């Protein structure tokens, strides 16, 4: 029972939209306490996932540490070539670089457990602080892109799947394949050229004015900030939009051919009811999956968009630190992305549990 969606999810992330729709689906958030044994089952599930997450984070930290620290020599970045041998040795000792790799790793791990990811070589400030200061910019961009893509993509996709042979549906699909294929950075270039260079109605980069909410600066709270956000968000949303549209279309097409829909029609249900009550619910599991996964991968793709639009988020930060070999920032960033991915997978899992009654046990 659990295998299919696992497969489906991973295929999705490979842009391969073959999700098993025939027996998939959802119901509105009916609690798990309806049937005896569900709470226990849920708890088992949660514990299993937490254990898994811990192991994954541990493995990730080791890989990232070995990958980033063991290759190359950080000392060359830390100090200039013309420094005396004494200072050089002292610096090596201060950073613990003369210790065996495993010892360095455990020292690192111990510090991480206390929330200390070290200091950025370039900015000279604690890495955690640095990343947290950049995170809101990326978050607001990502949320705007993914939510916007879902709001537009899902209805369009359902329409295209409901009337697959109509001219409008074919146009939608043609556009979506374009959105699916054109590299994000190129769309960014075209957007800048069109709206910033030619028409000169939107700014080409930067975050614009921000306003504080809960002590954090946000762009979406000011008109100027919003105008700065529009292009990068659209750029980031373009691929997601195509993905959501195609997914919703594929699901709708398959569900429309199913006996469930035929039976509903035979019972006299109107097309609107069929779409709203049957189709939408049946296709929402893969949609929830993509929504979650795309949210996470958008964080990663923000690297490209933020570079093009000089958006000061964590994507821009990681590119800069890769170029300047700022290793503590790279490690912390990769661990953060891994953590976010695990959390989102976890939430998606729990959503499934709430959405698909078949994952819950209990037979009358």
């Amino acid at each position, binding site marked *: 029972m659990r295998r299919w969606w696992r497969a489906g999810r991973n295929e999705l992330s490979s842009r391969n939209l073959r999700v098993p729709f025939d027996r998939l689906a959802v119901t509105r958030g009916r609690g798990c306490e309806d049937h005896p044994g569900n709470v226990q089952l849920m708890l088992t599930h949660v514990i299993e996932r937490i254990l898994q997450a811990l192991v994954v984070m541990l493995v990730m930290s080791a890989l990232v540490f070995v990958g980033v620290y063991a290759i190359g020599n950080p000392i060359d970045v830390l100090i200039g070539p013309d420094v005396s041998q004494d200072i050089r040795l002292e610096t090596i000792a201060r950073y613990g670089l003369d210790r065996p790799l495993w010892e360095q790793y455990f020292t690192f791990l111990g510090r991480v457990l206390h929330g200390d990811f070290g200091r950025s070589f370039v900015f000279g400030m604690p890495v955690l602080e640095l990343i947290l200061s950049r995170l809101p910019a990326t978050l607001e961009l990502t949320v705007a892109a993914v939510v916007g893509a879902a709001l537009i993509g899902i209805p369009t996709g359902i329409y295209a799947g409901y009337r697959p042979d109509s001219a409008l549906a074919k146009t939608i699909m043609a556009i979506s394949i374009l959105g699916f294929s054109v590299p994000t950075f190129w769309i960014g270039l075209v957007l800048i050229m069109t709206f910033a260079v030619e028409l000169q109605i939107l700014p080409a980069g930067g975050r614009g004015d921000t306003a504080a909410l809960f002590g954090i600066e946000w762009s979406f709270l000011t008109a100027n900030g919003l105008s700065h956000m529009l292009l990068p968000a659209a750029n980031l949303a373009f691929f997601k939009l195509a993905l959501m549209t195609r997914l919703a279309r594929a699901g709708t097409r398959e569900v429309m051919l199913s006996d469930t829909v035929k039976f509903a029609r035979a019972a006299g249900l109107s097309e609107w009811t069929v779409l709203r009550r049957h189709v939408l619910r049946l296709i929402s599991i893969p949609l929830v999956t993509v929504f979650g996964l795309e949210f996470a991968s958008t964080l990663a793709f923000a690297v490209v968009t933020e570079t093009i639009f000089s958006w000061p988020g964590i994507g821009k930060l990681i590119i800069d630190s890769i170029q300047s070999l700022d290793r503590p920032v790279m490690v912390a960033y990769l661990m953060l992305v891994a953590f976010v991915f*695990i959390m989102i997978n976890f939430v998606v899992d729990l959503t499934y549990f709430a959405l698909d009654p078949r994952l819950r046990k209990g037979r009358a």
Partner: protein
Amino acid sequence: MRKDSPAARFWAEFRESKVAVAALAVVVALVGVALLAPLIAPQDPYDLAKLALMDARRPPGYVGSGGYTHWLGTDAQGRDLFSAILYGLRISLQMGLVAGAIAFAVGVTLGISAAYLGGRREAFIMRVIDLQLAFPAILLALVISALLGQGKAQLIAALAAAQYAYFARTAHGAASAERGKDYVEAALSTPLPARQVVWRHILPNCLPPLIVVATVQVANAIALEATLSFLGVGLPVTEPSLGALIANGFQYMLSGRYWISIYPGLALILLIVAINLVGDQVRDQVNPRLKR
């Protein structure tokens, strides 16, 4: 190919979609043009001796010092953009296809072995694959190529490492499904040697979904390579791929010299869209749920 074989039937169905056939023709044409680039291109863009700074950043239609018209203009180094695009196409395709092929071989072997081995070994292999899939390909490729440094082989390694997991996952899924089918049980009850069951029965029947993933992943690899080159961690500037050409032109875009970025971009998009259109048709054809 006999006309009644499954492959022939597949082709007959494929041929019914005019768009897909046209897309396939475009792919074939682009591959052909890329292969023949040295013959077609008016200029060898790698030959620095032939480049003149006075020809740099000239608009389309400019007649340069070489005596011929630069129909698509020239880039910042004074290269004929049309020639540069042909050669860039060559590199992009090479990267995409080689990385795709390596990822395919590694991934499919892993995925099918896992499905066949079963038990703890299967669980272990697939856990590792899942772990990797939980990480966005672009970040992985970015980090790996940053670590390995610039160069074709390094880039191919980064692309393949970022992509093999998708093949492994798909191959594993398809092989697990096939393993439970009656014809595999029939082969097991004959009994046929395990190796024969895997290579002669399971693998051929896993090919359709793998072909779909392969088309998508080759397109992805090309786009990914372009993105990495754009971000400056891909290929060296001396041998620019399409992505590097676009990146090189980016800085001139704000000053209105659009052609340096736009034309290589159009070539890239044409290639990727065409591959994806072919993949789309194949996907529809191999999806049993749309067959009624």
